[in-house]
């Protein structure tokens, strides 16, 4: 008890100093606390209802949606959406919200990196663990999708009565070997009935018998209504389903979920999945539908997730791109726009971006050739790799403009022939370019 109190105090002091001095929290306070008291999570999570959200794509947006829902209920909620999603970052977030003398119920909506699920679950029992999807990610860091799933399930195995909320359209999640109660969400319709399973994706073969799946429809990547014609493994029955897609526009979508109409302010099919996932968690938390509706309709973009930045007379929409599935969804979302536009691409190869840039060849950049793109602006540490990729995708190179620094890129954006610029940036490119725009006085409030 003394040890945990000391750990919390040390961590809170570190957090206070870091926030005062550097305007931002880090995972250092959590690190300090867990060095002093390894099971600190046990102490700071008392009376906290915990929801963990993991999976390759959609974690940040879904966590943000659910947090805003939970925050509108009578029980106070907190989240790590502005912080780090690994063990120490999560501990930091719990300690920041820990009060020594105020014993109240809380809800924690936590985004968690896949590999960190067991590290948190060994100390605390989450009420809900949600898995959004499992796509090929940066292979230099994460390894194979099957390995990623194993890591998550190692965490799940600590708590057999934690509710699992799972993407039912994800074939890797329909046959989990665990007794936990499960709630599945998915699509009962497809936006594009002609969408075929892509040859160049993972997990197209039955996890039970290795035979290729048949799909009634594919929503995107390997998600959809699947079944195995060989052994009979099939998509589980859905508890929460998108029953109709009424509208998909560059500014948002309208759908029917479980017989009710919802407006989703974040564009793109992948955001319908995020909204559906948030809905499903909201249902499990017994959150009122009027709150769910309100949040989905007014959800503001998160850091780099369709975030709009005004650069003089240019409107720039920033998409963070991390892996092929996400980049493909970004292209499909940009393609909803009928007006001519400019595209900015920035490819970095730092650790957080993935040091192997090969993955851009798993992205359907060929689809860009059909869009009304008036200019291509290319930058980043691996700008020329991106230029080669775009040359192969579009069949020519004279329209591709490479710039080697942020100033030149910004000049090109300001001189773009269209009012709207879509920017697809890898993680550190987004952080660094935002920082540049802030220092150059184009935008304010870099942090959060």
């Amino acid at each position, binding site marked *: 008890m003394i040890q945990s109190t000391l750990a919390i105090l040390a961590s809170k002091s570190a957090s206070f100093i870091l926030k005062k001095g550097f305007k931002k929290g880090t995972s250092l306070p959590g690190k300090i606390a867990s060095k002093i008291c390894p099971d600190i999570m046990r102490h700071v999570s008392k009376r906290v209802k915990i929801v963990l959200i993991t999976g390759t794509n959609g974690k940040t947006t879904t966590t943000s949606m659910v947090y805003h829902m939970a925050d509108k209920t009578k029980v106070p909620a907190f989240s790590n959406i502005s912080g780090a999603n690994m063990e120490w970052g999560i501990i930091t977030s719990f300690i920041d919200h820990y009060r020594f003398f105020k014993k109240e119920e809380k809800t924690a909506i936590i985004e968690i990196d896949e590999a960190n699920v067991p590290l948190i679950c060994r100390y605390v029992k989450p009420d809900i663990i949600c898995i959004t999807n499992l796509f090929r990610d940066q292979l230099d860091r994460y390894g194979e999708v099957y390995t990623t799933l194993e890591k998550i399930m190692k965490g799940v195995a600590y708590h057999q009565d934690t509710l699992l909320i799972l993407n039912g359209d994800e074939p890797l999640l329909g046959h989990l070997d665990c007794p936990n109660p499960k709630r599945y969400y998915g699509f009962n319709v497809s936006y594009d009935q002609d969408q075929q399973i892509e040859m*160049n994706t993972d997990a197209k073969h039955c996890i039970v018998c290795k035979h290729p799946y048949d799909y009634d429809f594919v929503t995107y990547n390997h998600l959809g209504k699947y079944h195995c014609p060989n052994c009979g493994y099939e998509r589980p029955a859905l508890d929460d389903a998108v029953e109709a897609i009424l509208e998909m526009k560059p500014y948002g979508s309208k759908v029917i979920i479980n017989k009710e109409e919802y407006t989703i302010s974040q564009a793109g099919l992948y955001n319908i999945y995020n909204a559906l996932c948030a809905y499903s968690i909201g249902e499990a938390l017994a959150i009122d539908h009027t709150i769910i509706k309100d949040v989905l309709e007014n959800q503001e973009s998160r850091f780099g997730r369709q975030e709009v930045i005004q650069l003089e007379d240019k409107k720039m929409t920033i998409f963070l791109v991390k892996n092929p599935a996400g980049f493909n969804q970004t292209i499909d979302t940009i393609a909803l726009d009928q007006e001519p536009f400019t595209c900015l691409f920035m490819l970095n190869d730092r650790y957080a971006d993935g040091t192997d840039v090969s993955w851009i*060849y798993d992205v359907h950049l060929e689809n860009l050739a059909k869009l009304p793109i008036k200019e291509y602006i290319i930058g980043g540490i691996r700008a020329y790799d991106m230029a080669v990729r775009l040359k192969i995708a579009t069949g020519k190179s004279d329209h591709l403009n490479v710039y080697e620094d942020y100033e030149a890129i910004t000049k090109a954006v300001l001189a773009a022939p269209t009012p709207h610029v879509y920017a697809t940036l890898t993680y550190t490119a987004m952080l660094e370019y935002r920082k540049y725009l802030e220092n150059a006085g184009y935008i304010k409030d870099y942090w959060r």
Partner: protein
Amino acid sequence: MELHICHLYPDLLNSYGDIGNILIMKHRAKKRGIEVIVHNITINDPFEPDLYDIVFFGGGQDFEQSIVSADLKENKRDAIKQYVEDGKVLIAICGGYQLLGKYYMSANDEKLEGLDVLDIYTEKGDHRAINNLIIQDQDHYYVGFENHSGKTHINGLTPLGTVKYGFGNNGDDQQEGCRYKNTIGTYLHGPLFSKNPELCDEILLSALNLKYGEVEFSPLDDTFEMKAKQAILDRYLKS
């Protein structure tokens, strides 16, 4: 002129963006007015050595690779061996490169039989090499990215190049990849041809020469490719 490219198991052995090599071969051939027909050959499909001018063999994840290995042995091994021995063009990367050998040791010490097309073998390594890779072949460099734990020994076959930065075949003998007749095996992803267009042209020309006799190529504008390559050389080969 036309080229028939066989892409082996594109639905299963498709990690690390290696499909880019197919896209780049198509692009570079098309610019020279050569038609390219890609044959996607997977489980249960016959391998027709006479039909193909170039065979591309990539790597995959363990789950997918386990699906492939049975089919290779049952349905394709002899035909692929024949194709290679006939001196036709084959390019194998990473997992595909390992599978061409006599055997490879899996991460859990299982000895997995290879196709025995090349006289090479792959031992289990104690760490995974995940980094940019630069090799030198005579007066030029090939660059890419490697991600493997196997240590491959090529038993006196000619390597594709000498390692200048990175791990290569096994981290010990400074060799990377191998050449046997018109077959090339390598650990270079990136994809391989994206920053090594000269190697892509060499392969396209070998295939065309075998089919049509002496063929000549007009050069292409490779400014982006060479700048992308130079960026890696500048970063890692600082003298």
